[in-house]
């Protein structure tokens, strides 16, 4: 494979991180505002917000996984990755509107859970968000190491270190504001590169002639737009994760609190289209590789995109490709750093360690320190080359246990802290049992898990329908989905532990949450959330509102 020379790669990295650093200086302030550091001014415009949402959601793995899917499943493969990934952005929108209406000054979703339920629910959500962001950070640093190692004579560790310190350098001072501002430039580079690279590779491979030669060599499943294998092995598990990733990911929550409220719809819709077009487009490179009979180096599908780039692109376009991947991983990694700092500042320091009296300067210090520690940990773990994708799938499925409790808590006043906490733990426990087959999946045990998984399927469909069309449609479609899924699930899902465990997490957590809630007579006053979730900067009330969460008035 063609490699860029060491000076060229170093120059590209220096230009990229140097320019990004200079851009971030434009928003630097001597006295940084803690709220601005976490969610900017709550009124970011459409262009900046949509670009940031898109850039954040596209990470290096998006390209590799979409291309792998295209190569493995053929015609529909890239769609089954990119389309569902894009829908993750769209499906959080209706719930995002609710979050924003309840707590316009929120910094994290966990902070809203604190106001709604108290500490245990808050820390469950904050903890899962922190784990998710740390893993994402590691994945992005790992991708930087792998890219540098493949496309240059430099080593994996060099790539990890340069990316780690480059990203920390421009994010640490202004936090989320730096992240959003630099996202625009990074997305510009990504789209520009994608727009140039995809057609070049297509025509290098022979253009439309490629289809005449390649299509007959595909299997019937690969040649079908409605491939059952692609749906079951790629589309369905990803579809199940749609809501879980959106709820479990603080980077998206931060942006929905940051954008101007009346621009939320256009921002989310544009980000959905932007994500889909870039990721599906690059996923098509996998499909083209399949048609051309390209064999991935060492049989590793992750090598496919760099391999296609280095084989079919002229040197200047390889440089563009290099910047595209560095841009994608940097925009996600700086968002992860900002998300981690906001979680620790708000949920660990502000609401817990500060005992209800957060100091703005200390809070800012905590945020910056979090970024340094997180970068160091991610660099170390990335250097160990752990099996991170497995960890990510694990965490994604784990988030399934909190989706229903989080969403329902903001619509149904009867849910209690005990219901939230017990539902999350029960869902997590049953997820572990199903995922690692701690019990033999046979007979009544298997049927029970398949029943809960069917309920989980109904919950996923029901919540999605509820978000866009309201309670009635949500209940009807959720119920129908359960009735349609159950007969197929019994005796079948036990052979697919990843899908079974993900759906079980949804199903068990929902059943437990509803049952425990029905035991109580609580009727939460949602106006209390806005009273409790306030800006930290220059707000003296913020210093006193958290001396232990006082129960909100109960409406009878």
């Amino acid at each position, binding site marked *: 494979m063609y490699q860029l020379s060491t000076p060229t790669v170093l120059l590209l990295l220096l230009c990229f991180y140097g320019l990004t650093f200079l851009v971030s200086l434009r928003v630097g302030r001597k006295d940084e505002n803690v709220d601005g550091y976490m969610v900017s*001014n709550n009124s970011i*415009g459409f*262009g*900046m917000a949509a*670009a940031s949402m898109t850039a954040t959601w596209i990470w290096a793995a998006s390209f590799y996984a979409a291309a792998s899917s295209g190569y493995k499943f053929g015609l529909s493969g890239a769609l089954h990755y990119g389309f569902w990934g894009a829908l993750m952005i769209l499906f959080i929108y209706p719930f995002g509107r609710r979050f924003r209406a309840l707590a316009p000054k929120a910094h994290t979703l966990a902070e809203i859970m604190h106001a709604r339920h108290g500490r245990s629910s808050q820390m469950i959500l904050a903890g899962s968000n922190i784990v998710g962001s740390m893993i994402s950070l590691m994945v992005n640093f790992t991708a930087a190491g792998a890219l540098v190692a493949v496309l240059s004579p430099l080593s994996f560790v060099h790539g990890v270190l340069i990316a780690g310190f480059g990203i920390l350098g421009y994010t640490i001072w202004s936090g989320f504001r730096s992240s959003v501002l630099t996202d625009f430039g990074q997305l*510009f580079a990504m789209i520009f590169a994608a727009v140039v690279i995809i057609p070049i590779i*297509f025509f290098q491979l022979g253009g439309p002639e490629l289809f005449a030669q390649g299509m007959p060599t595909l299997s019937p499943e690969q040649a079908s737009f409605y491939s059952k294998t692609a749906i079951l092995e790629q589309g369905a598990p990803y579809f199940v994760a749609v809501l879980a990733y959106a709820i479990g990911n603080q980077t998206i929550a931060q942006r929905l609190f940051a954008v101007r409220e009346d621009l939320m719809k256009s921002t989310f819709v544009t980000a959905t289209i932007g994500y889909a*077009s870039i990721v599906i487009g690059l996923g*098509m490179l996998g*499909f083209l590789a399949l048609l051309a009979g390209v064999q991935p180096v060492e049989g590793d599908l992750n090598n496919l995109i760099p391999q296609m780039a280095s084989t079919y692109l002229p040197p200047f376009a390889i440089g563009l490709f290099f910047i595209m991947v560095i841009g994608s991983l940097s925009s996600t990694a700086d968002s992860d750093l900002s998300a981690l700092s906001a979680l620790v500042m708000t949920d660990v320091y502000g609401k817990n360690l500060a005992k209800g009296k957060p100091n703005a300067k200390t809070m800012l210090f905590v945020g910056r320190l979090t970024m340094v520690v997180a970068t160091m940990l991610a660099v170390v773990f990335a250097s160990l080359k752990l099996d991170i994708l497995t960890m990510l799938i694990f965490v994604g499925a784990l988030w399934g246990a909190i989706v229903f409790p989080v969403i329902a808590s903001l619509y149904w006043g009867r849910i209690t802290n005990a219901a939230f906490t017990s539902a999350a733990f029960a869902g997590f426990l049953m997820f572990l049992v199903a995922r690692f087959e701690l019990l033999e999946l046979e007979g009544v045990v298997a049927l029970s898990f398949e029943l809960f998984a069917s309920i989980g399927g109904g919950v996923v469909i029901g919540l999605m329908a509820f978000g866009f069309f309201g309670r009635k449609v949500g209940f009807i479609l959720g119920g129908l989905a359960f009735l349609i899924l159950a007969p197929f699930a019994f005796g079948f899902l036990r052979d697919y532990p990843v899908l079974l465990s993900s759906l079980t997490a949804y199903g068990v957590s929902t059943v437990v949450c509803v049952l425990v809630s029905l035991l109580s007579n609580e009727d939460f006053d949602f106006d209390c959330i806005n009273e409790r979730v306030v800006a930290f900067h220059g707000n003296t009330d913020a210093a006193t509102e958290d001396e232990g969460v006082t129960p909100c008035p109960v409406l009878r």
Partner: protein
Amino acid sequence: MSSFALTLYVLIWPVIAAAVLITLCVSLYRDMRKAKRDGTDLV
């Protein structure tokens, strides 16, 4: 699917991406002008 349809299927994505980029750039330009006029920060 015909070769033309497949070509369209592969190349439509960069076209959509380019359209999104143009939309975002125009919008950012307007936001920058408005921020400058109002004396406010962009982010």
